[in-house]
């Protein structure tokens, strides 16, 4: 029982320090960025034609003249009170923007995460089960080629091929252009989701397949598989009875650790497909000097990635008997 309390307290401490670290880092990066937030906000032409008084007024309105440390502390204090601030770019509450963008991104990322996880796992298991076989060669070839391609480039190629040339899917956005939001059906939304999801998964698959394959090879060369063979188990029985059981733990860890990659990939993919999600909002915020929005997104993302790793850790303890039962007196 004590152990659990300590674990929870430790996890909270880690999460808090991570959030502080991420927010300071993001804040510093935006602060030292050469982009002037006021200029970015009102636009270059408007800014140049403004009187110096007006410029000064705007600068003081957005707090440009306040020292950075003070600005950060102010933001942190408000954040703790649940106020994430107003977005410079969208002129709306950051929390509201994040909620809306997050919903869009979430569906995309969740689908891509599941798809790449399941596909990558199956491919890795099949490839590793018979090392050097035809499936192994295909999976390896696919994974190495895919892993060496930049995500945004694949996104562009898919866009050109499937959206522009073949016209199977819309070329971007999350709803049909010019349609009243009230008329958008779930079918429309799904149709817009398919291409970004496939792009994101296709890249994620490679990584997971290669890692799973590696683990699978280790298992197939282990002493207990050798012994299972000696006991007359067929290859299929060995895979079903021993390999899958043993590969599940590393696979789950990998799957939850890959959340960060899906987040990273979604920034690029959303940009290419003009998909109005969190990733795109992050890019907009970063380029527009929108400190409040960027900090909000960074912190929320960090919490999610941290949560993923935490879940992996907890699951590890639940699934692996060596950890679960080894605590009380085992070896």
């Amino acid at each position, binding site marked *: 029982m004590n152990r659990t309390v300590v674990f929870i307290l430790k996890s909270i401490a880690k999460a808090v320090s991570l959030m502080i670290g991420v927010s300071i880092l993001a804040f510093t990066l935006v602060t030292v960025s050469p982009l002037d937030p006021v200029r970015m906000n009102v636009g270059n032409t408007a800014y140049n034609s403004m009187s110096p008084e007006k410029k000064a007024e705007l600068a003081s309105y957005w707090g440009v003249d306040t020292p950075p440390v003070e600005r950060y502390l102010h933001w942190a204090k408000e954040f703790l009170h649940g106020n994430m601030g107003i977005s410079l770019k969208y002129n709306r509450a950051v929390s509201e923007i994040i909620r809306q963008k997050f919903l869009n991104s979430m569906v995309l990322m969740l689908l891509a995460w599941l798809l790449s996880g399941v596909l990558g796992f199956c491919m890795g298991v099949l490839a590793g089960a018979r090392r050097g076989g035809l499936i192994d060669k295909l999976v390896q070839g696919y994974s190495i080629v895919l892993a060496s391609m930049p995500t945004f480039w694949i996104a562009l190629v898919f866009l050109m091929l499937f959206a522009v040339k073949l016209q199977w899917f819309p070329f971007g956005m999350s709803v049909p252009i010019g349609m009243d939001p009230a008329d958008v059906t779930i079918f429309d939304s799904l149709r817009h989701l398919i291409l970004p999801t496939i792009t994101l998964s296709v890249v994620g698959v490679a990584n997971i397949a290669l890692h799973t394959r590696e683990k699978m090879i280790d298992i197939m060369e282990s002493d*207990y598989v050798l*012994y299972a063979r*000696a*006991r007359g188990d067929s290859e299929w029985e060995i895979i079903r009875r*021993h390999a899958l059981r043993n590969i599940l*733990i590393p696979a789950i860890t990998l799957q939850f650790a890959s959340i960060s990659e899906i987040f990273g990939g979604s920034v690029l993919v959303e940009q290419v497909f003009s998909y109005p999600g969190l990733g795109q909002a992050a890019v907009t915020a970063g380029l527009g000097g929108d400190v409040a929005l960027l900090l909000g997104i960074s912190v929320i993302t960090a919490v999610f990635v941290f949560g993923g790793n935490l879940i992996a850790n907890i699951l590890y303890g639940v699934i692996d008997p060596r950890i679960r039962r080894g605590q009380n007196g085992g070896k």
Partner: protein
Amino acid sequence: METKKTILDISDLSISFVQYDRGLQQIDLPVITNLNVKVGEGEIVAVVGSSGSGKSLLAHAILGLLPENANVVGRMEFAGELLTPARILQVRGKEIALVPQSVNYLDPLMKVGPQVRNGSKKPEKIRRQKSLFQKYDLSRETEELFPFELSGGMARRVLLSAAQMHKSRLLIADEPTPGLHLAMAKRAMRDFRAFADEGNGVLLITHDIELALEVADRITVFYAGTTVEEALVTDFSSEKLLRHPYTKALWNALPQNGFRGIEGLQPYVKDMPKGCPFGPRCSNRTDACEGEIPLRQVRGGAVRCILTEEKKEA
């Protein structure tokens, strides 16, 4: 002895591995050459050799567990039938059972009970497993343990139970005792004896010559991947009854026989001496030792040495 049937008969077994030496040059690395082992009904035959002599590979060859780059030449017979790769697939785990070295050969994530039953939920399998556990003094709760929760002695008994889930004719025990203290090791040996006495065969692969002498009927001495001597366990009562200089050296190295070692090391497969592999360490070496050394039948045993005399040495 004469009426007993042979369960396992291995003659002139050679195993080599294809390896890349330097760059793309392939070499054939011989790890076992002209090995001979025979196990009869009711017999425990110990294959004794130091580590690196190729003992475990023998077990792997019989069970068809060698990696793909291994070349196997020679003749293996099991219960009077030629042991072909297809036949191996039929008998392994059923008529030939392996008792592995340690608990590491059990799936770490599978409970012991189901693992011994090989995942089977059939009532007769469960009954058999339970009765075997009872026979080996394993409590009911043992079934529900994971391999890492077993003590060394329990692990050995679990592995022994697993080997007897089928009615096997031959048990291959690959170093079954390291890590066990003497009482446990002796108990393990008694279990093997009991199994052999039911008319089965046990091939005991070990580096522990004292243990082998304790339990085995015949001893096959292994040196640098080949059989140098086949002796009855009674031959070990006196140095004079032994046939090969290496066996004699082993005998002399036993604490009760003087505890004297000899110079040198077993040669590595890549720089094997010409002729007799033991030649460089042998005090009786002659020029003829660099030629072909056949396995000869001498005084009810066999020896791969041209110098051994037919009659009892004075």
